């Protein structure tokens, strides 16, 4: 009896000891791996997410050809899966821009990708040059007062001023090195493979990732594609097409057509007027309420307008914006500019560094002319970039960089039919090269298909089944067509009472 008790006691102690020992062991493991690979990982909070998430940094060489040279710290955040018991591969999120910091989008991704996050960790890595990964950000000169300044004032000295503030070897802040960082983080986190989601420029990054490290990737979602064959910056034709569709939708909508019968003509007239000379009006500062001179130039008006074409909610304001501006009321424009004030969300230094070196050199004069031959903003957006690029330090991307990517990784390609920057034709280009891919065009969607619940559900289904051609796309038909704000109070126009004041105003 006593003997048995002893044995029982010993067995009992051993099991407790074992539990403690295993716990101690696993902690030692984390400490060790952090030591050898210079990975650090701890619980933290990120802005806009209530729950605790994981924040980490990984030290990587600034120049991968010199592993012992200068090192930079790559910042990342892991949004943990709600249910991690299923042991699903994580989804790595590649941000857009170029120049968006993935971790700064954490709160949007946290709620937007909720369906995916139910069973998968989401890995957000600040691309080198953004966020807290050796950011390339310019202070004052490029963030002028958005009401008094106009884009046309932007000078090369501003760019030079900006360049002086940037630290690090700019030639190393290229897309390929960014992908090397991403894959180093993947390896440091001990994932054999990951799924990747790229949106906008993130699709370019994703394609580079697929070419460089195909064995690290389980599957890919490319949302609003910028393929390597199409240089970033040629937005003239796609923006014009997106805008024309908006005009057509307004004309097809009985109420919108009635309210804004001459929208296209009003736009042309307004553009011509602003082209001749900028307009300055006195308004109450949108934020301060004090009197402010609000200057509207051609480029300012069109670039603000173009920004509104990216998403369905802002597109609904476009007819009103044009009509009011035509009538001489620029307050809606001021309200829209106020919304984007302060948080551009783009690390402009990195943006120029990549676009000026990887994309702009690939744009021939003929391509430029063809792109500028449109009825919306002509070559405006490209001209602004080209101006900055003329003084930006240059580097030569690697020879492989412009190769088309053709790998067999399961790939889902998404495009929005109304997208002003990455039109469905881009998606077709990518689709043509990728063997195991499927291209879905969302009819009532602008930039980024994952912005709707339907888009997320399709992505989630794809990540689960890995069969790009067998997805249930029916929910896309339920996404409502665009509808427009028809008056300063948002009322539904009623024939008799609405046409009169409109005429009176004219």
């Amino acid at each position, binding site marked *: 009896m006593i003997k048995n008790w002893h044995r029982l006691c010993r067995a009992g102690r051993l099991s407790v000891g074992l539990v403690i020992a295993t716990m101690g062991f696993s902690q030692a493991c984390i400490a060790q791996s952090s030591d050898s690979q210079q990975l650090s990982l701890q619980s933290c909070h990120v802005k806009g997410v209530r729950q605790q998430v994981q924040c980490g940094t990984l030290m990587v060489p600034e120049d991968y050809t010199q592993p012992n040279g200068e090192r930079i710290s790559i910042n990342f955040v892991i949004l943990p899966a709600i249910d991690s018991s299923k042991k699903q591969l994580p989804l790595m999120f590649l941000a857009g821009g170029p120049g968006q910091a993935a971790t700064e989008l954490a709160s949007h991704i946290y709620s937007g990708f909720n369906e995916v996050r139910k069973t998968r960790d989401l890995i957000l890595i600040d691309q080198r040059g953004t966020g807290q990964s050796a950011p390339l950000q310019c202070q004052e000169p490029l963030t002028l007062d958005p009401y008094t300044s106009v884009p046309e004032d932007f000078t090369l000295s501003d760019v030079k001023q900006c360049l002086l503030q940037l630290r690090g070897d700019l030639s190393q802040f290229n897309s390929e090195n960014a992908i090397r960082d991403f894959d180093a983080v993947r390896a440091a986190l001990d994932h054999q493979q990951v799924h990747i989601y790229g949106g906008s420029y993130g699709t370019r990054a994703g394609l580079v990732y697929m070419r460089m490290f195909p064995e690290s990737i389980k599957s890919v979602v490319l949302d609003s594609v910028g393929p390597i064959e199409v240089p970033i910056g040629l937005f003239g034709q796609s923006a014009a097409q997106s805008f024309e569709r908006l005009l057509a939708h307004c004309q097809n909508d009985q109420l919108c057509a009635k309210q804004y019968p001459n929208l296209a003509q009003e736009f042309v007239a307004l553009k011509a007027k602003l082209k001749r000379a900028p307009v300055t009006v006195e308004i109450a500062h949108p934020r301060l309420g004090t009197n402010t001179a609000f200057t509207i130039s051609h480029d300012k008006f069109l670039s603000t307008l173009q920004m509104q074409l990216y998403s369905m909610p802002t597109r609904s304001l476009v007819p009103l914006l044009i009509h009011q501006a035509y009538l001489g009321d620029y307050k809606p424009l001021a309200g829209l500019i106020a919304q984007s004030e302060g948080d551009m969300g783009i690390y402009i230094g990195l943006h120029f560094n990549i676009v000026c070196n990887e994309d702009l050199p690939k744009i021939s004069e003929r391509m430029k002319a063809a792109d500028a031959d449109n009825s919306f903003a002509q070559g405006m957006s490209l001209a602004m970039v080209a101006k900055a690029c003329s003084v930006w330090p240059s580097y030569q991307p690697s020879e492989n960089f412009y190769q088309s990517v053709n790998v067999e990784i399961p790939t889902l390609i998404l495009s929005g039919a109304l997208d002003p920057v990455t039109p469905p034709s881009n998606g077709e280009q990518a689709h043509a090269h990728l063997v195991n891919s499927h291209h879905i065009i969302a009819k009532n969607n602008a930039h980024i298909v994952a912005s709707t619940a339907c888009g997320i559900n399709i992505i989630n289904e794809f990540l689960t089944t890995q069969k790009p051609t067998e997805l249930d796309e029916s929910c896309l038909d339920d996404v409502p067509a665009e509808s427009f704000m028809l008056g*300063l109070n948002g009322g539904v*126009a009623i024939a008799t009472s609405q046409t009169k004041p409109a005429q009176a105003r004219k």
Partner: protein
Amino acid sequence: MMQLKALMVKEFKEAFRDKRALMVAMSMALLMPVMIMVMLKVAIKEAVDNPPVYVKYSGAQYAPKLIAALENKNILSFAQVPADEKRNWNERNIELTIPEHFAEDMAAGKPIELILRADFNEKSLSTPIRRIKTLINEYSLSIGYKRLLVRGIDIKLLQPIKLLEQDTALPSSNAMMISLILGVYLMMAAFMSGLPVAIDSSAGERERNVLEMLLCQPVSTLKIVLAKLSCASAIAIISIILMLVLTSLAMNFVDLTKIGATFSIDASTFAILLLLLVPICLLAAALQLLFAFQAKSFKEAQSTVTMLIMVPSFIPFALMMMDDKPAWVNWLPISGQSLLMEDVFKGLAVDWSALFFTSAATIALTVLLVWVLAKRLTSEKVVMSLS
């Protein structure tokens, strides 16, 4: 040694002979997981599913965009109700009245008054009404924001202060509700499952005159008590293991991720829970035996023991209500374990010293009770229930 073994064999045989009593003992372990599962299914459905709601509109034609927005959230017109649900929704009778001058007032920027009419006390209507109210408020607010925006006002002005919340709970503590329920049920199972066996092997045996015969044998009363104790506590332990296993299995049938939660019992959690609960099972069995021997008849034993056993089962509830817990509750039997269980479910590291002390205290109390019981069984008063 031989004697104890023989006694234990006897106790277990007797316990397992009466299948119906055994079923009663295990009923808690079998039913609780089912109950938790059903409760969760209902809760999840309430929280996330958007079943169609049918509203009797009057004046729907005056606000087509609002109606479309409602429809988008599965709030539909009564005209669309399927035949088999018609009676229900007709009875529920949610009415929304849209005034004729909706469009004019909207364009003129005048406040528009909609009337939502329903029985606000009816439980089945609380979710539909909440959904309708939320949607209309959001719709109204979004128009308000746009009105200000197109007047050239920075709409961020409408939110001067933004409160960013940072929750320090560990992500794994998401399924708090389940953990709390399960913690309480485990404690109850530890206490209640051995109860029929304990009463039967004490008061029951006395009534059947088995106890008298047993005490006539040349064995120490301590061995008799130990045999009875191990049998009753073994049943309780089996019941707990069954409950944990079945709950883990049952949770696979509930999609907790829908409410942002997860629940799983891995091997180490399982081991720690058992480590916590086994002493409780022993203590419970000792208490039950003590009070059952104390009672005059089987029937009395049943009622007193049930009553007394309910008291410690409510300790976890009491702890839940207590916001400021004095330090000593960490060390006491039952309260200590239930606090530790809470930590385990929250995914916090186990406080091994607290675990050790509370287990030691529990076992010490059990030993004391066993000793008292063994002493008492030597007295004829107890054996003949004369006290």
